[in-house]
């Protein structure tokens, strides 16, 4: 395992995620960027653990496993928030759900 390559990758991923988080206003784009930052942190955790022992110590592995599950639940919750915000921002309050145009909304 080449330590410097993985360190550079983790740092680069973090920087890309931070740029995406700060530069764009689209919520899903920012959520993707935040997910990439999370991946960078996980990668650094495991790389430091793997630098002292192979396979890496199980405690950081368990922490990252926990983190992956927490990240997906946070992403889902954030998407529901985005949905609520999107529907609030729509002009027509009477029909908040953008239905397909085939006319299946009211039968």
């Amino acid at each position, binding site marked *: 395992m080449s330590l410097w390559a*993985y360190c550079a*990758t983790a740092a680069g991923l973090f920087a890309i995620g931070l740029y995406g988080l700060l530069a764009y206003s*689209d919520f899903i784009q920012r959520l993707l960027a935040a997910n990439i930052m999370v991946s960078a942190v996980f990668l650094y955790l495991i790389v*430091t653990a793997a630098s002292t022992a192979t396979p890496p110590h199980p405690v950081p592995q368990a922490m*990252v496993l926990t983190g*992956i599950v927490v990240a*997906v639940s946070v992403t889902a919750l954030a*998407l529901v928030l*985005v*949905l609520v915000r999107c529907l609030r921002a729509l002009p027509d309050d009477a029909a908040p759900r953008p239905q397909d145009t085939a006319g299946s909304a009211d039968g």
Partner: protein
Amino acid sequence: MSGALEASFDLLLGAALLWLAWHSVAAPQVLRRVAMFLVFGLLMALVWARLGAPDLALAEAAIGAGITSALLLGAGVATPHPDLDGAATRTTRSACGVPRPVLAVLCTLLGIGLALVMYATASTPAPAPSTAAVDAHVLGNPVTAVLLDFRGYDTLLELLVLLVALLGARVLGERLEPVPATAPPGGVAPMLDQLLAMSTPVLLLTALYVLWAGSDAPGGAFQAGALLAGLGVMYSLAGRLQPLAHTPHRLRLLLVLGVGAFALFACASLLWSPAPLTFPARGARALALTLDLALMISVAVTLVLLFLAAPGARIGRR
């Protein structure tokens, strides 16, 4: 020779990850971004395998690449996007007010600095922490042993986080209109039944195997739960699972099964040990498998309900 080969493989993997990350952040169309993120997750799984953490590779492939991408893809299709044509991506003004070129330079500098600090801390020779207690554990997979036994509190609280996220999603969803139970528009595709019929037993079998093997080999409750949740996502996308206006009682029981089993275990363990969440000397394997089963069911049901509450399942019917 093999050292140079390994180094070039690592370098290639890192470069591919960075390229994919950049495109999943900055690609003009939302679907392309999510597709790049999906591939990014799969390459991340490859990195975990390369670093000697196959449990993480399984979890990343199933949860990080699978469930997260399904959630984001559904949201990308379902929610209205003002910058779908890339108009907002082309402006130089960033969301935080700083011009984008300045922000890019700042982030590049931060990345270089971080890389130097990371390399300095990671390459400092530190004594490897002892793994004697984990190695002597009755469970052969050290990660499962840590998750269930040594760090049981973490796992218990992680399950609570999942539950709270679902509660939040449900509470927010209450403010929206309930989704009418309708068949998927356009009728059922003729191949869909065949595909579901074929993949259901395969996925069930794989999930149960990953759960069973998790005691001694890579795998475990979270990976198995994510596989089952993937099955639920398939059913949802095929129109077989509709978003629920109310969670039935039986489903609520399954949701709290993991937390409940862990809490019961914490109380019961006071009978044979002064500290809660300690495994008994005898019957530890059976107990671990029971806990894993409860965890798998809870994780799977929670993830599926989270997916059903998310935008993709709600308004993605096109």
